[in-house]
């Protein structure tokens, strides 16, 4: 089974907090209210909720891939 990785772009983030509401194990907000990924490699049992978080993100700041994102 391939591991799923998640990354988030603070430049795109509008602080809606839908990701954190859906999956607080993976997403947090910093002092500016911007998205922070706590665990880029997603535990299999959280994958569905991380996909939901990405779907709900209004500014499409969350990317899901099959490897870690550089930078």
């Amino acid at each position, binding site marked *: 089974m391939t591991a799923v990785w998640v990354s988030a772009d603070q430049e795109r983030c509008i*602080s809606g907090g839908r990701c954190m509401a859906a999956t607080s194990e993976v997403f947090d*907000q910093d002092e500016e209210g911007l998205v922070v990924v706590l665990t880029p490699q997603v535990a299999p049992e959280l994958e569905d909720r991380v996909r939901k978080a990405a779907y709900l993100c*209004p*500014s499409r700041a969350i990317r899901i891939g099959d490897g870690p994102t550089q930078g």
Partner: protein
Amino acid sequence: MTEAPPYPQKRTCPYEPPAGYREIAERGPVLKVTLFDGREAWMVTGYRESREILTHPNLSSQRTHPGFPIVAPRFRSQIARTLALIAMDPPVHDVYRRYLNPHFSLKSVRRMRPEVERIVAGFVDRIVEHGPPADLVPLLAVPLPSLVICRHLGVPYEDHDFFQDASGKVMLGTEEESATAAQDLFDYIDRLVAEQIKDPSDGLLGTLVRERVVTGDIGHDELVSIALVLLIAAHETTSSSLALGVITLLEHPEQLALLREDPERLPGAVEELLRYIATTDLVATRVAKGDIEIAGHLIREGEGVLVSGTLANRDAAVHERADELDVLREDSHHLTFGFGIHQCLGQNLARMELEVAFQELFTRIPGIRLAAPVPELPILGAGTVQRVLRLPVAW
């Protein structure tokens, strides 16, 4: 070519789409509608298509654009056309949004919860003291968002009464009363901002003075414009969602029972109510600043674009049993707060106010019921915010 159907249309039930929207939905997901002034605009009714267009780079919020669609007479005014954030495009929009994001993030809203719980408990105390029948519009739905935003902005305590009274008149008064009250509020904000610039307090306005005015990022006028938009956006929408939410739950007793069984269901229920009621019938009014291709249609530069929350939230292509209220549903995602970079700044505050209010109301007054049949409740608003002017309950 069939004629473009009229939009908006008035609801007859406060939480159900008007009968005429069925035809609009059938002709969707993208069609042309006719506005009150006889002009036509594109309307998007599909959920997927709404998400797509609301993230399209050629969609603009510039309300001063000659092609910008006007959906009701009150949106003709200069104030409505120059609102901070709402009527702005990037890059200015994004700069303003970043000033405010830290103060409306999910985390900062969660810190406000204990205070909102105290405020709600106080209002419900007064409802219980008042005794049945009690009208929840003036006793809870109007003053709650007013007091919460008042505290958040840092409006001095002694001005709370003026503030709530004026915001009540803006929403519930006659056209003349409403216009006068809006002007009073504007003058008040103007003075308040001047005072805060001289002597900033702990609230959001004082914080913005310290973070943005002192630094030279914005001046007095910009701060007034920001405060005004926070007030307008915080009030009517939350107030109406609260009143319509209570009506909807009381009209669906089996759903309310599910909620009472397990308070953990409350956040999901609020989400479903937001979807089902679609208080903001129209979730976006935009103009194309370049051509947009969507669902086989070509929207040309300069044409108006509308997104119907009422219809997108009940899109059968996306939601199972779309017309059914189900507080336990998993697919309760909706466009009530919009989508894209303009998605509601105060969405988490609104959710929290609704959660706390429903929790307190239905726990403290277990026998609560409507004291008037739904068809007798006076409804206001078409194409904008759906509201009831009275909500009498008994117990």
